[in-house]
C-alpha cells in the first residue's frame, strides 16, 4: 500500500478513535457512515478517482505504459484487490491528431494495455472490461499538445458489481 493510502487509512482510524472517545464532541451519537463515499473514505470510488488516480496518459501514437503509469496502475490494482465489490471499465482514448478508425483502434490498444497490467498485478480478468472512444470524447479541447496529452489517456471507471 502506498504512502497516500496508508496515511488516509491512518486518518480514518484516528477519526474513529476520536469519535469513540468523544473527541470530536457534539453529542454521543456517532455516524460512522458520515464519510462513506467521500474521497477520504479509502473504500470509495471517489477515493479511487481522486487519491489513487483513475487515469494514465500515453505518448503520441503509443500504447506503452510509462513508469509513472505503471505506478498508478499498481495502486489501482491494490485498490481493486482490497475492494472486491467493484469492477472496472477501462476506457481508451486518443487525441484528435489522427483519422477516426485508427484512433478507435489505438484507444482499444491503450485500454487493453491497462487491462493486461492490472491482470498482471493480480486483478481477476472477469472484473475488467475495455472500451475505446477513439478521439470522440476529448477532455481538453484546445488544439495543441497541452490539451492533446490530457486526451491521450486510459481511464478506469469503477462500478459496483462482482464481475461476470
Amino acid at each position, binding site marked *: 500500500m502506498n504512502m497516500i493510502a496508508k496515511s488516509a487509512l491512518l486518518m480514518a482510524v484516528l477519526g474513529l478513535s476520536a469519535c469513540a472517545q468523544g473527541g470530536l464532541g457534539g453529542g454521543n451519537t456517532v455516524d460512522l457512515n458520515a464519510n462513506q463515499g467521500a474521497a477520504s473514505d479509502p473504500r470509495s470510488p471517489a477515493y479511487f478517482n481522486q487519491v489513487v488516480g483513475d487515469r494514465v496518459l500515453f505518448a503520441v501514437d503509443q*500504447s506503452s505504459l510509462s513508469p509513472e503509469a505503471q505506478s498508478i496502475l499498481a495502486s489501482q490494482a491494490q485498490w481493486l484487490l482490497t475492494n472486491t465489490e467493484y469492477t472496472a471499465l477501462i476506457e481508451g482514448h486518443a487525441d*484528435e*491528431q*489522427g*483519422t*477516426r*478508425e*485508427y484512433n*478507435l*483502434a*489505438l484507444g*482499444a*490498444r491503450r*485500454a*487493453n*494495455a491497462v*487491462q*493486461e497490467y492490472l491482470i498482471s498485478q493480480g486483478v481477476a480478468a472477469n472484473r475488467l*472490461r*475495455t*472500451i*475505446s*472512444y477513439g478521439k*470522440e*470524447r*476529448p*477532455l*481538453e*479541447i*484546445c*488544439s495543441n499538445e497541452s490539451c492533446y496529452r490530457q486526451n491521450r489517456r486510459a481511464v478506469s471507471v469503477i462500478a459496483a458489481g462482482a464481475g461476470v
Partner: protein
Amino acid sequence: MTRFLIPVAVLALLIAGLFAPAVAQTSPGPLRIEITEGVIEPLPFAAPTFIAENAAASDVAQDITRVISADLRGTGLFREIPASAHISTITSFDSPVQYADWKAINAQALITGSVEQTANDQLVVRFRLFDVFADEPLGEGLQFVGSPESWRRMAHNVADQVYERITGETGYFDTRVAFISESGPKNARLKRLAVMDYDGANVQYLTDSRAIVLAPRFSPNGDRVIYTSYESGFPRVYLMDVATVQRRPLDALPDTMSFAPRFSPDGNRVVYSESSGGNTDIYILDLNTGQRTRLTQAPSIETAPSFSPDGSQIVFESDRSGRQQIYVMPASGGEARRVSQGTTGRYGTPVWSPRGDLIAFTFQNAGRFHIGVMRTDGSEERLLTASFLDEGPTWAPNGRVIMFTRETAGTDGAPALYSVDISGRNLQRVATPGMASDPSWSPRLP
C-alpha cells in the same frame, strides 16, 4: 420534334487534363473547353426559366430551373449566362430556337424546358439541350413524370442528362449523402445519423443524438446504411433500412468492438474491423448466412477496409510497418501488398473509386492533413487538399468528385463537409444544417 444523337464533343479535361500536360483542346464540335496552363474555361450556358404549362406549375418551374443551374455551376465546369443578359426569351417549349440571339451572348449550350402539373396531380418535366454554335439540339428531348414531391429529383435528372451529353461522364446529381450531423461543444458533442440530397436539400435524421454514431456508408443500391453506434454501450456495427429506419446490430462476439464497416459491391457482405484483446483486424460478415470470416491476423492495427468495385480485392490501412500505410489484399484474405509509397507521413481511410482506377485516402504529415488519390498500384499519388484536419473521403458515383470532412482547429473547432474535383479544383463547402462529418455518397438513385 426529336433528333438523333450527334457525336458528343467531350470535355477532355476530366481525363486528359488530369494526368497529362494541359493543352488547348481542339474537338470537332463547337462545345469545347479551352485548357491553357491548367486553367479551365467553364462552358457558358443559358437556362431560361422553364415554361409553366399551367399556373399551378409556375413556382416549381422556377425552382427546377434554379436546381439545374446550381448543379451545373457546382461542378466548376459550367458558367451560367444570367437571364438579365438574354436577348431572346423562350415563350413556348416547341417554338424554334433563335440561335443567333444565343450566339450573340456566347451561350454555347442552351437548356429549355417546361413543367406541367397534371389533373391527376403528377408533375411532367420536359427539357431540350441545344448546341448553339452547331445550330441544332444535342441529343433528344426528354420527359420526366413524377409526384410533385419529387421535383428536385427530376431537376437533378435533367442536369445529369446535360452533364453527360456535354462531358461524356455519367452525372452525379441525383444522389444522396449519408453523414453525421453534429452539435454542441467540442467536449460534449452530440452526433446523429442523417441523409440528405447531395446538394444539402431534404435532410432526414435517422437517429437521435442519444448515442455516439459514426461513419455511415450506403449500400450499393442506396437502400441501406451501415454505421457504428455506441447505443449498446460499446462500439458496434448496425445495419439500417433507410426507408423504414429499422435497424439491427450485426452479430458480435462478447468483449469485442466493431467499427469501420463497408458493403461489398453486391451488397451481400460487410467488411469491417473488430477489436479484441486490444488488437484490431479485418473481418467479413455474410449478411445472408451470418458467417463471419477473419481476413487479417496480425498484431498490428488493420482497419478502414474498402472493396474494389469488382469485389475481388480489399484495400485497407495497417501500421504493421511501424506507421499507417495502405495495403491491398484479395477479398478472400491472404497476402497483402503495400500500395502507399511515401517515405514520410501516414496514410489512412483508403476508399476504392467506383470506376476502379483510383484509391482516395487521408494523408497526414508534419501536422497537416490532406485528401489524396493514387493509382491502385500506388503510383501517381496526388494530394488534392490541405488543412488542419481533412479526413474520410467518399466518391461520387462517377468517380470524378470526392466529398470529405474538414475540421477547424481550436476550442471552437467544427467539422463541415467539403467536395473537390479529382483534379484538385473546385473545392466547395457542402450545405448542411449545422456541423457535419463522415459523408458517404450514394450511388445514382434508381
